[in-house]
């Protein structure tokens, strides 16, 4: 690493997108999960609700990850869980980032009363304990995975909105934007042409962060019992395991409780790797103190 000294121009970084190695590891993990999610129905040896064998059978050729106390095949449940988790990451994560991005853009661009009202709402949402709020809303609105994703997006947008708003605020009054407006460019055109390209990376960083939070919430809500009863998820497998009184008196926890934990850990590790790498793109000054070595 070189120390930038006065008079030595730093190389332009804005168009040189080199993802640190750890970012590629993360991308590989995410792609792996996405592939599994797509082919999961073909891979799953049994239907999720099928009584496929004797209860609490250890891993074997008939059941690669054994069965639970009822006799459900746990590998099939875990594969179904991959789909639920990836749905959370994509739909809830993207939804959160889109809602947050749009609100941040609006607030930062128009300022004034729009900004004031939107940011007050954001502040209120940031103070409220949002998990209990989610629980109350979802018990009323329904526990389908689409509804859960929507509720997550509508409660967790303030983080993304705040980041975007600050970015837009600093761009709004730059001379090139003012000049474009002076030549008669409309708000929509200037936003698309001059603001969006600049905030693109920030939006990506917000998206990755939102996806991680969404997975944590979608699986966590399933763990609390707020999920689609017909669709097994990592959370519901964990709930079933921990609710089973004799779990720790046998070795059942090894194939029942441990696999969903490992799966969540791996997926979130992938998202964190990608997030750390993107974060570095956005803010190269971080690199000096981050966990990612300079390549």
């Amino acid at each position, binding site marked *: 690493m070189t120390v930038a000294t006065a008079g030595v121009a730093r190389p332009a970084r804005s168009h040189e997108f080199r993802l640190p190695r750890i970012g590629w590891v993360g991308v590989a993990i995410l792609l792996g999960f996405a592939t599994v999610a797509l082919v999961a129905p073909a891979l799953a040896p049994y239907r999720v609700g099928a009584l496929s064998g004797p209860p609490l059978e250890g891993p074997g050729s008939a059941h690669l990850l054994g069965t639970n106390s009822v006799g459900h095949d746990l590998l099939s449940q875990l594969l179904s869980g991959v789909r639920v988790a990836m749905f959370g990451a994509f739909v809830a994560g993207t939804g959160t980032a889109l809602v947050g991005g749009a609100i941040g853009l609006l607030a930062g661009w128009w300022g004034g009363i729009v900004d004031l009202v939107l940011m007050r709402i954001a502040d209120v949402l940031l103070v409220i304990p*949002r*998990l*209990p709020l989610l629980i109350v809303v979802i018990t009323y609105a329904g526990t389908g995975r689409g509804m859960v994703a929507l509720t997550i997006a509508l409660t967790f947008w303030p983080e993304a909105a705040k980041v975007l708003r600050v970015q837009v605020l600093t761009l709004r009054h730059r001379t090139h934007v003012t000049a474009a407006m002076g030549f008669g460019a409309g708000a929509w055109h200037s936003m698309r042409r001059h603001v969006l390209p600049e905030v693109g990376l920030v939006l990506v960083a917000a998206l990755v962060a939102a996806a991680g939070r969404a997975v944590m919430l979608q699986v*966590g809500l399933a*763990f609390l019992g707020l999920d689609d009863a017909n669709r097994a998820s990592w959370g519901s497998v964990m709930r079933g395991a921990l609710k089973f009184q004799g779990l*720790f008196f046998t070795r059942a*926890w090894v194939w029942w409780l441990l696999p969903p934990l490992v799966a969540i850990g791996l997926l979130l*590790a992938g998202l964190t790797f990608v997030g750390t790498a993107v974060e570095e793109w956005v803010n190269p000054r971080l690199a000096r103190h981050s966990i990612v070595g300079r390549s």
Partner: protein
Amino acid sequence: MVGLYLLTLLAMVTVVFGLPRALPGDPLVALQDRAGSSAISAETTAHLRSYYALDRPLEYQYRHYLSRLGRGDLGWSISRNVRVTRLIGGHLPWTLLLLGTAFTIAAVLSFLTGVAAAWRRGRPLDRALLVAMTGLRALPPYVLAALLLIVLAVLVPAFPLAGARTPFAAYSSPLGVVGDVGGHLVLPATALSLSLLSTKFLIVRNAMISSLGQDYMVLGRAKGLPVRVLKYRHGGRNALLPFVAAMGAEVGFAVGFSIFVESVFAYPGMGALILRGVETRDYPVLEGAFLVLGALVLILNLGAELVMSRLDPRVAGR
């Protein structure tokens, strides 16, 4: 700032009031449909209708609801036929114990590790702490809790598996109670504090790093001040303000995290109450729990605000 908290309180109350009424149909129909096996008789429906003033205009209902809340009436539990306030009264102390313990541990640990990491920034200790904290940040609290449970209650049976005290235990002395409750508290509190550590660590570390380059630090060093004084009294003190701000901002998350951790350890706090409420679709219990936890978070936020204005009078003027 107090205005924001009042607004937030009003928003929470309005959501709880509006949600069942915004959905299509009658709130009592929703209640009947979801309540499962216990069908509600016509007299009960009529009684509930007048109790919640559902036969009156919406605006009257809202005022009626607010005055009910003002009197501390959170309604009756559907599944257990007890006042919601009584249920909460039984569960809240455990959550307060868990949250208080975990918050204290997390605060002390994150401050010490943050200062230590900044002091040796770029060195092995700093890098190790950063990796560890990033890992803790990535893992959801229920995963951390389950892993702790497996390692320290199953593989090495050092701590109890679940609950907050040994059932049917006869204590010989008050000390026995403390020991039993404390032993049951160790794992949940550790899990919760581990998931609350990382944000504050990063904030303290960054604030500390920016204060390390200041002139007064150089002067302090030139004066020959002991390292401890330099580290905590001159450097660390400047990290206190963002640190307290982060604690305030984190309270809401901490409450949510504690619900997850409690469900893993079957700890009898608000999380357990909410879990049972979800299973039985006990709306009044869920709403009451949300309002009480929300009020708790608001009070703690206000507390953080007051501490901050003590630490730095300029904050109060904002």
